[in-house]
């Protein structure tokens, strides 16, 4: 009977989770891929500001190069995710040239691809550097309605390519969470010591560009009632570090803090998720 109750509560939880985070599944468990067009990062602000107050931002050429690779970072992260079809708007010209070339009569007996199959976009992603706050923002537009779908922003702390690359990962995670409801769920406890979970399988892998050693915060999304309003709050449960990136979809994390609580909540059927945390 206890197991039965637990099953019902888990099912309700999963339903609420999916509903809240906008994850809609077909009966076969696979969602329709979202068609995402990614544009070149707008660095006008950087150039203008940097020219005006040359040393004020503490950014240099290396930072400029790293910043300008942000669109590539976004493409790298989303092209590995089967939930998305990525269109790199920067490549449109060369692709169009190739499509035109194949219409030529010299292709009569040769291999040609089908024309008129270009993918339309559901969403457009426009990255921009904001000099005033030394931050990067990405605005996601929904093409059909022509509206701003969502926005994510991150401050850039520190200098150099490594810092900017790292904050790109934070930005991508923020976009995943805010715009696409992509969470990193804890799947199952793999190793325990007494009541404490030591190693846990998490559903994040090479597709999300994670690496061994990345620090993660484990949390449970709980609801808080404020008068007649119900707000969601991510309650920290523990800390973990990626021990092994197994494949495209899975990694094993070592629980660094809160092993007992992780174990307790997972055994109670609570859905725990984790997120990448900014470095100190």
């Amino acid at each position, binding site marked *: 009977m206890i197991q039965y109750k637990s099953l019902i509560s888990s099912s309700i939880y999963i339903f609420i989770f999916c509903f809240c985070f906008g994850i809609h599944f077909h009966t076969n468990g*696979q969602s329709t891929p979202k068609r995402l067009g990614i544009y070149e990062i707008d660095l006008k602000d950087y150039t203008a500001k940097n020219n005006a107050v040359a040393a004020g931002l503490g950014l240099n050429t290396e930072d400029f190069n790293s910043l300008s690779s942000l669109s590539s970072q976004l493409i790298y992260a989303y092209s590995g995710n089967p939930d998305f079809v990525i269109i790199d708007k920067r490549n449109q010209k060369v692709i169009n040239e*190739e499509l035109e070339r194949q219409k030529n009569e010299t292709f009569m007996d040769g291999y040609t691809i089908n024309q008129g199959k270009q993918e339309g976009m559901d969403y457009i992603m426009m990255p921009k550097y904001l000099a005033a706050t030394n931050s990067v923002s990405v605005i996601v537009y929904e093409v059909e309605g022509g509206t701003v779908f969502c926005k994510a922003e991150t401050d850039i702390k520190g200098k150099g390519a490594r810092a900017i690359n790292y904050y790109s990962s934070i930005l991508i995670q923020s976009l995943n969470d805010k715009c696409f409801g992509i969470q990193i769920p804890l799947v199952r406890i793999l190793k325990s010591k007494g009541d404490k979970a030591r190693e846990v399988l998490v559903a994040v892998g090479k597709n999300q560009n994670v690496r061994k050693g990345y620090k993660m915060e484990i949390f449970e999304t709980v609801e808080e009632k404020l008068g007649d309003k119900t707000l969601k709050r991510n309650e920290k449960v523990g800390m973990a570090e990626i021990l092994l990136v197994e494949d495209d979809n899975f990694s094993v994390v070592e629980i660094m803090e809160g092993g007992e609580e992780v174990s307790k909540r997972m055994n109670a059927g609570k859905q725990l998720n984790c997120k990448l945390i900014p470095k100190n």
Partner: protein
Amino acid sequence: MNTKFTFIFILILSFTLSVVAQDRSVAYVFTKANGGPAWQEVNKNLIAELGKNYGYDLYFYNYNVEKELSYLPQLNGNKEEKTAKYMRQFSYDLLETYKPNLLVSLDTNKNVTGVFFQLNPNILVRSKTTDLETSQIVQNSKATLKLEEDHFTPFKSRINITNWKALFGGNPDAVKTKDPKRYAALYDKLILEHSPKMEGFFKQKGEVINRYFVNEQLHLLDESYSKVQNPEVSKEKLNKFKIIPERKGSNYVAAYTSVFTLDTLNNYIYSTMVSLFVGNTEKDGSIIFSRAPFQSGKDAAEAIAAGKQLYYEIGSQGYGDKIVDQKNVMNLGVNTPDPDFNATMELYFNKMSGVKLYDISNKELIGKFREKYKSEQFINDKFEVKEQGLNYLLTASKEKIEVSNVENGSVVGSFNADDRYPVVYNSLLDALKLNIEVITITKEKKGKAQELLLYSPLGFTHVEKLEVFSVNVEKVNGKELERRTKIGELKATNEAFDDAKGRTERREVKDGDKEIYEAIKAGKKVVVRLSEKVGIFGKIDNMNSKLGKLNGLK
């Protein structure tokens, strides 16, 4: 480098044999990497080497910095110009420096034991052969050659300064610090005195290039294998066989030549090596292959007795394949703003025999040939442009490389520019939803797999180690996700060579023989991928060092 003096020769070679004359023509493009006088010698040697013909008809062209293509009849014995199927580009860097640093060797007490100039014996060579009718890159290579020195090498890379004591009165480095003017004057004197040796040394290097490119690479355009004919079998062993090359001197005879059978299993063609042979070219141009030492020749004789055809290896393009593999056509073009980077990428992807690479970077030059061939002069020549469309485009932006599907415009894969070859290869398999298939277990013992026959749509090279994973499906939030668990490893076939091979290959099991056997026999989904571990000897390409020029690209 003074670009005014940079010029490119294109040598068109076409075969004298009328049967294949229109099918086999090669264009060499070589640039003068710097202005050293050795260049002229290299050029002269190359033309002389090509003049030996080896059964080919030679045509020389000039392609200057103004991008004008002109035929050079005087270098072609004033013979009539014909169309060519292939264009071969050829570039090298002799790494010449006619002003090397003066080096000092010291003993443990820091006393000077010698003073010398050290010249660089390495040569960086690149070659690319493009089909002028289809724009397909049929061959490319990049190699660092080293001029080997022995007693008979007249010019050495190390030029010893025997009179250093008399000149400098002590350690030249001390003179350099105390009296830079005097040092500079003495240095200039030494450079002038030893310049003939330097020039001679670089000329020697030029000859090495010519031998490598002219004699040893032409065979790459021949078939990759041919039938063994008239085998001599005695005492149930294959001892010898003789071949008469189609074009005298053009067949490359490797130190050891594989002799193998080709068999089919389901839809796959695979090779089984039966013995190694050593070829010797006879005076009449024929080649006698004799069984290599420690080779029994029994398997070869048994294969003949069983009515099987034996083949011997010529090129390295590979012979294993899947009979019907239309869905895995990958026509790739590399389109980045940097020519050097383009070349590196082309080299990288051409190692994958399952990828057909097309020459976008030479679009203009190919176009000039095609325009030229439209003229009345070539009306009787069989030259027909048969372009092949690209279904994938490779572009580079800063630190990332992207592969885009031309048909729908989507990015199917993105790699880090510093990813190594196995990572790119695996990412490409994943991006295109392809797998290395286990065709069958070819050797097993007591419930353990000892050897597997594999098929990779991208093709194999010799060097890669492989990892085997079993796949389980995990349900996460109602979504089915594949989880790979490593169950074993497969050996590389030969770490010494990394040229492209066929798309089927036998691999010995290194680890996990029982687990692999059980997973396959149980019908579990098994995934094979290239090992991404870095080998001790670093045989696997690392793109990192080649991509310095990516900085600043858009």
